[in-house]
């Protein structure tokens, strides 16, 4: 009885062992969501004068400064690279991209907290920050696909200095 059973059990044992290995291997079984389309992890603001500020998880490195009645032109670059929490370097340039060639349903919403201090004009590729009066405020950048938010940067502080 056992010799024939032993032969019959071998493939069964193999199947069960594979099932066990599959169960071990599936670490993502309970947590990982799927994201469709562009993967955006950080935003880099490149100013006309070559300076830039970039987001890093919950904070920013760098901040735009402009004067009242002045302007600051900014290009919106994005990256799918997310650096470690203790790595505060700018993401590699080769990973940057803009939404210029993205599908038409991608858009960027720019919101300034105190609209008496500054205003924004532009599109999903970039725009201009117009200083209105001496003061400080924060600006947020939200990338959406249609009406679905796919990325939201932490709020960025900026300063509008008095007109010269």
């Amino acid at each position: 009885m056992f010799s024939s059973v032993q032969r019959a059990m071998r493939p069964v044992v193999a199947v069960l062992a594979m099932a066990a290995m599959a169960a071990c291997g599936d670490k993502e079984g309970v947590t990982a969501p799927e994201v469709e389309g562009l993967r955006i992890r950080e935003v880099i603001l490149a100013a006309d004068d070559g300076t830039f500020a970039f987001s890093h998880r919950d904070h920013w490195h760098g901040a735009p400064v402009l004067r009242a009645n002045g302007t600051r032109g900014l290009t919106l670059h994005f990256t799918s690279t997310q650096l470690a929490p203790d790595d505060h370097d700018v993401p590699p340039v080769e990973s940057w991209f803009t939404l210029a060639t993205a599908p038409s349903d991608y858009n960027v919403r720019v919101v300034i907290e105190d609209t008496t201090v500054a205003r924004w004009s532009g599109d999903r590729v970039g725009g201009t920050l117009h200083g209105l009066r001496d003061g400080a405020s924060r600006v947020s950048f939200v990338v959406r696909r249609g009406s679905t938010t796919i990325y939201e940067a932490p709020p960025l502080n900026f300063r509008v200095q008095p007109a010269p």
Partner: protein
Amino acid sequence: MLAQGAVGSALLHIVDSETRLPVRDVIVRVGTRVLARSDSLGHVRVRISEDGRELTLQRLGYAPWRGRIVPTDSIRDIRLTPVRYELSALEVRSRALGRGSALQASSVVGAEQLAERLAPSIAAAIVGEPGVSARTNGPMATQPVIRGLTGDRVLVLEDGMRTGDIATTAPDHAVTIDPGTAEQIEVIRGPGGLLYGSNTLGGVVNVIRDDIPRARPAQTTLAMSTFGESVNGGIGVSGRARGAVGALSWAVDGTGRQAGDTRGPNAVALPFTDLEGMDVGAGLSVAGSRGHAGVSAREYRSYYGVPSSFGGVTLPGAHDGGVYVDARRTQLRWDAEWRTDDARIEAISVGGNAVRFEQSEFEQGGFVGTRFGQLAASGEAVMRLRAGAHRGAIGSFVQWRDLRAEGSFTGTRPAVQRTVALFAVDEYTRGSLTLLAGARVDRSDTRPLDSTETLLLRDVRTRAFTAVTGAFGARLALPLGFELTTQVARAFRPPSIEELYSAGPHLASYAYEIGDPSLSAERGTGVDALLQWRGVRGRAELSAYGMRVDDYVAFAPQLDPATGAPMRDPRLRRYVVYRPQQVDALLWGVEGRAVLAPTPQWTFDLSGALPRGAQRGGATSQPLPAMPAATLRLDVRHQRGPLTLGVIGDRRFAQRLVPDAPVLDGLTCSVQVIDGEAQGLPAEFCATPGALLLNALVAWRLPARATRWPATLTLTVDNLLDTEWRDPLWRAKQVAPQPGRNVRLVVQVER
């Protein structure tokens, strides 16, 4: 006349005792081994030895028939009585003693009752058995309570093996067993340390699946159930199949269910109580007259909400905005038994399992607030012995588990726990007297993987616990079907990882818990007295118990020595800091049940329990927190042909025995709503009003000519009057009531 050892046969003719019509698909068994099945004329031929065999005849919708059949040339007529309740003996299993009556109070919830309820959790499936209640935190996160003890003090097993999940670590964690396809659930009340080891102070719940066939099925069998219920729009299906291919026996089973939010009385929804889950398993074995050997694999997944608010009011201590738990358990199990010819060694039995468990808890916004992960394995080896009137066993048990947690909403420290045990038990029967004695030695050590000290958590180190437990009992068969059983048993529980090493929030207990690495093990000594009666038309039991637990661990709120106010957590200054303290506890009570079927048409099932518990710390004594209230339940059923009507009255008495409340910022049991959040004393310090619930049931056994396979429809209405009632064991009872009226339809099919 047959020669000694020869085999003969008998032809049985099985009919319905009322209609005299033949009954098809009746399963004929010897023990757990299926011999044959009756045909459409009710005929079945069985091969048996010269001196006959004890046979069991079973079929859905009929009371089991048991009797001795000897070989004969004439047709033996057997009449099956159609009833809804089994009047069978209570047989529980253990690897050490095999199948038999436990020498302590116990209950068995059979497959038919389980299929009738199709509850989403083990606790809900067995609640209502004497001495058993449930600690609820939503339909899935429900844990069994036996004689007032729950969590780490009630051991939940699956086919005798530990589940490897983390159900006992928090009130919002689920037992990862779906009872939908269980063969039966055995509940042993009182200390079960001898046969089952540690963590059995309250008792043992053993879910029997038999997914590793212990006997080769003679035929392929299939049973399926599907259900829908109104209280949460729930639907589900479960199925179980067994068969054999050549020498290989196989078994598969599975349950799937989903439900929306549960509605309370007046159809007010309790948010974050929706759920979905599945539990599938498959097993293979080789089984013969000398034993069996096999393996099984099982996968359990569930995704369920933990209620956080009701009527716009956040429940005390709930996760803001609700939480969803995503749990997954993968198990491999093996089991083998070899029955020997040896005069002294009856059998050698080994078994074990390996479990991978992970759980993520998603907070509002979808981020993972807490993750748990555990690898666990256990194994047991037993040698059953016999010598004259003695029957016993010696055995060993090993267990290993590695528990880790991460995230902001947990203070559980990672740790590895190992346990080794040796035990011996002897049962001696002489005439009407049976004596049982046994001893067990357990050694358990817990090693923390994070030994960082804090101001309140010091000396974080490995702890080892050694305990000797055991039991001594006697059962005396008395005239007129009475039986008196008494037992003295000792059990122990090592402190849990959370009790030793916690250093963080425990939102399910709405507390910030700091462990104490110097805790001692809990040791309980219990005395049980059980009077049972079994007759042709009924059975009854009455039990009284008492148990003393030394070094009972209870978390108590801490006061700031500088200000005298409750100490708040050092991170957010929001949660009260709790630390474990050890007191002496005393539990006692009575339980009873009587099932009477004075006529084949009527069945009366009366059960009740009165549990009590007190803790003594120093010179003071006060009630143990979260003790269940007294209950009384009457289930009346009337059978008219294929139709069964039932009415169940469930009286839950008020629970007024609660411990003195600590001084907590002037909070009282009257809940105040501040900024949408309920503010009040913890529920364990507040009394609970009683309630009388009414349930109704209609079951229809479909005629054989209408369906190809035997089928039964059961329509149940729980809480018929939509009564608003509070569960004394629920921490949110002051804010939210229990579910309202529920109409449930279950369709069972068996082949």
